[in-house]
């Protein structure tokens, strides 16, 4: 399941609704990405996430489908927020549930790596030096390419 929204999410509630009544599940892995209060030495006052509405949902669904083909998952969920966020705010939630923990761990990490390199979102940081568009990280590309080797 994919959701793209401005409002916050409740991790406990999402976990419950994805996994309850499914007794084939043995392990659930959750990733929550949050806004850090500093970046490259500058304090970050806020951040605005812009996205490409027509493409975002489709791209996230493709990534989720790829994970579900590669790993044996009983459930998965991606929620990605956009709009203006403050340090400490949640940005993204990824949940993977499986009979066995290894599938859940690998699929969750895969989803996070891929959405960081494929999902059309861009971060504009507000620091004491002004605003700047966050540059993509070579480490993210490397993390994503791990899964195609």
């Amino acid at each position: 399941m994919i959701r793209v929204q401005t409002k916050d999410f409740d991790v406990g509630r999402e976990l419950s609704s994805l996994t309850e009544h499914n007794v084939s599940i043995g392990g659930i892995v959750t990733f929550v990405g949050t806004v850090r209060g500093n970046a490259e030495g500058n304090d970050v006052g806020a951040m605005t996430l812009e996205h490409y509405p027509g493409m975002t949902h489709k791209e996230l669904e493709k990534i989720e489908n790829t994970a579900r083909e590669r790993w044996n998952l009983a459930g998965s969920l991606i929620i990605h927020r956009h709009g203006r966020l403050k340090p400490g705010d949640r940005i993204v939630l990824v949940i993977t549930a499986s009979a066995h923990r290894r599938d859940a761990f690998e699929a969750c990490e895969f989803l996070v790596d891929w959405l960081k390199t494929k999902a059309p979102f861009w971060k504009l940081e507000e620091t004491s030096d002004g605003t700047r568009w966050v540059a993509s990280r070579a480490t993210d590309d490397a993390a994503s390419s791990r899964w195609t080797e």
Partner: protein
Amino acid sequence: MEVLYFAWLRERTGISQETVQPPDGTDTVEKLITWLKGRSAGHAEAFSDLDVVRVAVNEEYAKLDSPISAGDEVAFFPPVTGG
């Protein structure tokens, strides 16, 4: 043809979306960019370093040599930084 700009490409061109009619023969992303650069100084600046520009045609990732035609939606944006 609809052209969309995101993040700093939107800021440099000053436009989030424009409807354009490039000349006949503009049948690849690369040719479209060459033509768009002539539209304003902002456009020229936005496309000055194609290493940091990504493109999608009809909401699917594409490349410089990808084909385009009238009626397509072509979006330009920097490498993504979500998550």
